[in-house]
C-alpha cells in the first residue's frame, strides 16, 4: 500500500495536523470568548490537557442502550473528519485531488450529524432524543443554503467539481472578489456556524436547556473524541471556505503570512459571531436559513450563472 496515503491521513494534512491545529485554534476561541466576557481565559495548552484528562476518565455506558452504536459513533465521525481534512488538505497544500470531489465532501459531512444523533439517542435519554430532533432540523435548515453555497464555486469554475480544478480556476481571480462569491462566502460562514452548532445555532446542544442534548450521556474517552471532533471542524470548514472562495493557500515568502491571516480571519469572524449572538429557537433558525439565507444564495447562483 502507498505510504504517502497513510502519511496524508494520519499525519499531514489529516488527523494529527488537524487535531493539533484544531485544539490550538480552540484555545484561541476560548481565549477570545473569555476576553469578550471580561475573563482571563485558559492557558495555551488547556485543550490538550482537557483531552488527555478525559482519556483517563471512566466511561459510563447506559445499561439498556444500543451500546455498539453509542461507542462507535464518535469514532466514525472522527474517521470521517480525518478523511475530509485529508481530502481538503491535500488539495490545499499539495494541489492533488485525492479520494473524492466536492459532492463527496458534501455527503461525507452529513455523516457527522448522523453519528451525533445515532450515538446520542442510542441511550434512550429524553434530552438526547430532543437533541436528535433539533440536530436533524438544523441540518435541514442549513443544508439547503450550504448546497447552494457550494454550487457557486462549481458554476464559477465552469462546472468543475474536482477540488483541484476549482483551485486552478481561481488562479486568475479569486471567487470572493465577485458579487456572487462574496454573498456565497458570507452565507457559507453562517452555514458553518450552524454545522458546527456554534451560537447562535447551538440549538441541539443548548447546555442550559437540554444539557448538551445528544452528548448528555457521554463521558471519558468517548466525550474526549466528541470534543476533538468539534475542534477538528475549526480547521476543516475554514479550509473549505478558503479553498472554494479565497484561492487556497500559497507558501511563497510573504504569502505564508497572508495564508495564515486568511484562515485566522475566518476563525475570528466565527468567534465574533459566536460571542455576540444569543441562541435562537429552532423555528427561528429554520426561517432564517429558508427565508433569508437561501433566497440570497439563489441570487448569488443567478449572478454566478451570468458571470458576476
Amino acid at each position: 500500500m502507498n505510504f504517502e496515503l497513510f502519511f496524508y491521513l494520519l499525519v499531514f494534512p489529516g488527523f494529527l495536523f488537524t487535531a493539533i491545529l484544531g485544539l490550538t485554534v480552540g484555545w484561541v476561541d476560548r481565549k477570545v470568548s473569555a476576553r469578550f466576557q471580561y475573563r482571563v481565559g485558559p492557558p495555551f495548552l488547556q485543550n490538550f490537557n482537557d483531552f488527555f484528562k478525559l482519556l483517563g476518565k471512566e466511561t459510563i455506558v447506559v445499561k439498556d442502550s444500543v451500546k455498539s452504536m453509542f461507542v462507535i459513533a464518535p469514532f466514525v465521525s472522527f474517521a470521517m473528519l480525518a478523511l475530509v481534512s485529508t481530502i481538503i488538505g491535500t488539495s490545499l497544500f499539495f494541489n492533488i485531488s485525492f479520494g473524492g470531489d466536492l459532492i463527496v465532501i458534501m455527503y461525507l459531512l452529513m455523516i457527522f450529524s448522523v453519528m451525533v444523533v445515532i450515538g446520542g439517542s442510542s441511550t434512550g435519554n429524553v434530552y438526547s432524543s430532543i437533541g436528535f430532533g433539533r440536530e436533524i432540523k438544523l441540518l435541514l435548515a442549513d443544508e439547503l443554503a450550504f448546497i447552494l453555497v457550494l454550487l457557486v464555486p462549481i458554476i464559477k469554475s465552469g462546472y468543475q467539481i474536482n477540488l483541484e480544478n476549482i483551485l486552478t480556476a481561481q488562479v486568475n481571480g479569486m471567487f470572493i472578489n465577485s458579487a456572487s462569491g462574496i454573498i456565497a462566502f458570507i452565507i457559507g460562514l453562517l452555514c458553518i456556524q450552524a454545522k458546527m452548532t456554534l451560537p447562535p445555532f447551538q440549538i441541539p446542544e443548548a447546555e442550559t436547556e437540554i444539557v448538551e442534548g445528544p452528548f448528555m450521556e457521554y463521558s471519558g474517552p468517548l466525550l474526549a473524541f466528541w470534543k476533538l471532533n468539534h475542534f477538528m471542524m475549526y480547521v476543516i470548514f475554514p479550509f473549505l471556505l478558503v479553498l472554494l472562495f479565497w484561492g487556497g493557500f500559497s507558501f511563497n515568502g510573504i504569502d505564508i503570512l497572508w495564508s495564515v491571516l486568511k484562515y485566522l480571519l475566518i476563525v475570528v469572524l466565527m468567534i465574533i459571531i459566536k460571542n455576540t449572538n444569543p441562541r435562537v429557537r429552532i423555528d427561528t433558525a429554520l426561517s432564517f436559513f429558508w427565508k433569508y439565507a437561501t433566497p440570497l444564495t439563489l441570487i448569488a447562483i443567478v449572478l454566478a450563472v451570468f458571470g458576476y
Partner: protein
Amino acid sequence: MIINELLLFLILPLAVGFVNLFLPVVLRKVLTFLVLTFGLVMVYLFYQRLTDSFAYFNVVIFSLNQIGLFIVAFIQILSFIILIFSVNGLDKYSEKRFFFLYPVTVSFCNAVVLSEHALSFLIFWGLSGLTLYLFATMGKTHDAPKAAKKTFIIIGGSDAFLLMGFVIMWLISPSTGWSLNNPQIPLQGEYAHIAFICLLIAAFAKAGAFPFHTWVPDFSQNSPVESAAFLPASLDKLLGIFLLAKMLTSLFVVYPLMNVILISIGALTVIVSVMMAMIQNNAYRFLGYCAVSQVGYMVMGIASGSVIAFAGGLFHMINHTIYKSNLFLSFGSVEKRTGTAELDYLGGLGNNMPLTFLMALIGGLSVSGIPPFNGFFSKWMIYQGLIEKTAILDSGFQLWLLACIIIAIFGSALTLANIMKFLHATFLGRRPEIYKDIKEAPVNQWFSNGLLSTLCILFGIMAVALPLKMFIYPVVEASGMNIPTFVGLYNPLIIILLLIIAFLVGILIYGLTAKVRYDDVYVGGMPALEKFRIAGTEFYNEVRNFTLLKSIYNYAEKKYFDLYEMGREFTFSFSGYLQKAHPGQLQLYVLYMVIGFLIIMLVV
C-alpha cells in the same frame, strides 16, 4: 421451433405457480425456491451467450437484449432474496395464495421485459398489474380493500394509456408495426407526442413517479410487507424504469427540451414525496413515500440525455430495489415481532434486534446517499451527468437545471432526515416496557436482509468493478452510447480504507484508555421513567408548520394533489347528477327521448 430457452423464463415460474395451487404449503415453498434458483442459473448462462429471438407465426414475440437481460437478472436476484424472507412469517391463509402469486408474478415480469411485440408487452404488463392487485387484496388492514381498488384503477388505467400509445405508434410508423425493436420514432407532431405521453403515464404509474405515485404508499401500508418489498419496491420499479429507458433509447428520439421537462418531473417527484414522507407516522406508508422519491432520481438520470447520468439512473434503479426492499423487510421483521407499524408506539428496539437494526441502518444510509454505500455512487453519477449537461446549455436552461440539481441534493438531505426519524422511532430512543422481551428476527429474515445489506455495501465499494462493468456498461454500449468517463473524482476503495484506518486509530486510543462502568439513565437525578419517552414522530412539526409549507401540507392531507382521489370525486359528483336526472318519472324520460330525437335530427 416451439420451445426456445428464452421461454423458460416465462413458462417455468408460471407452471410452478399453477402446480403450487394443488400442493401443500411446504412443497409450494420448495418448488418456488427451486424455480427461482434455476432462474438465477439461467441468467448466468444467458450472460455467457445471448440467444436469438423467439418468433411465432413469423412475428418476433420475445427477444433478449442487453437491457432485457439486465432487468431479468435483477428480477430473479431480488425475487430470490425476498423469497428467503417470505419463507416464514405469513399466516396460513395468506401463504397459500402468496406462493401461487409469487412465481406467477416473476413469470409475468420476465415476460414483459422479454417482449418485443407490443401486444405481448401489453398483455403481460396488464397481467403483472393484475397480480399486483391480487397481492393488494391480501392485506389485513381496514383500508386494504380501498388500497387494492386504488392500485387496480391507477395501474389498470395506465394500461389503457399504454394500449393507446402503442396503437398510435403503430399508426405513425406502420413499417415497424407492433415491433418494439428500435423503431426510433422522432418526437415530432401531436401524434408522436400523444403516444409518448401515453407510454410515459404507463411507465410513471408502474414505477410510481409523480403524479401517478399515490398507490405506492397506500399499497405499502395495507399489503403484506413481503409483497410491498417485492412489487412496489423492486419489480415494479424495474419494469417502470425499464419502459422509460426503452422509450428514451429505442422507441422515441427525444429533443433536449423534453429531457429538461422530464428532469423537472423527476425533481418534482423527489421533493414532493420526500416532503410527504416527512409527516407520516406509519412506517410502511413512510417507506412507500420514500420509494416514490427515489424514482425521481432515476427519472432525472435516465431522462437527462447524458451518458453518465443514464448509467447512474440505471444503477440507481437497482440500488433502490436493493436498499428499499431491505428497509421494507427489516421493518417487516420488527412489525412481525411487535405487531404494530405505527412509529408512535415503537422505540429502542436496537438492543433487542441488533442485526435487524444494523441492516436497517445500512439500508437507511444507502437510501440517503451516504458514502461509501451504493446509493451514493449512483446519485453521484446522476449529479455529474446533470452538471455536465448544465455546462453546455444556455443561461436560462442552466438556471433551470441547477434548480433541479439543488432540489435533488436537498432531497437526499431530507431523505436522511426522514430515515433518521424512522430509525429513531423504531430502534433508538427509549423502549416501551411492553417490548422488553422482543427477540431478534428469525434466521431466514435477517439472512435475507443481510444479503441485501451486503449488496448495498458491495455495490457501493466495488461499484465500477461489479455492477457497472458487469451489468450496466453492456446496456449502455448496447444502447449505442460510449462508456462514460467520470467528471468528478470518487474512489470508494480509498475512502473506505482511510475511514477504516482512522476509525481503528480512534478505537485503539479508546481501547487503551477505556474504563467502562454501566449505569441507568438519569433524568433530574432520578432513574428515568417510561413517561420520559418521545417517539420522535413529532420531530419535524416545525417544518410542517413552516409558513409556506403549512397550507401545502394541509391541502395534501385533504388529498387535493392525489389524481385518483380527485378523479373519484369528479366521477361521483358527475354520476350524482346523472342519478338525480333519473328520478323514475315516465314523463321525464319521454322528454329526454324527444330532446334526443331532436338533437339527432339537427345533427343529421
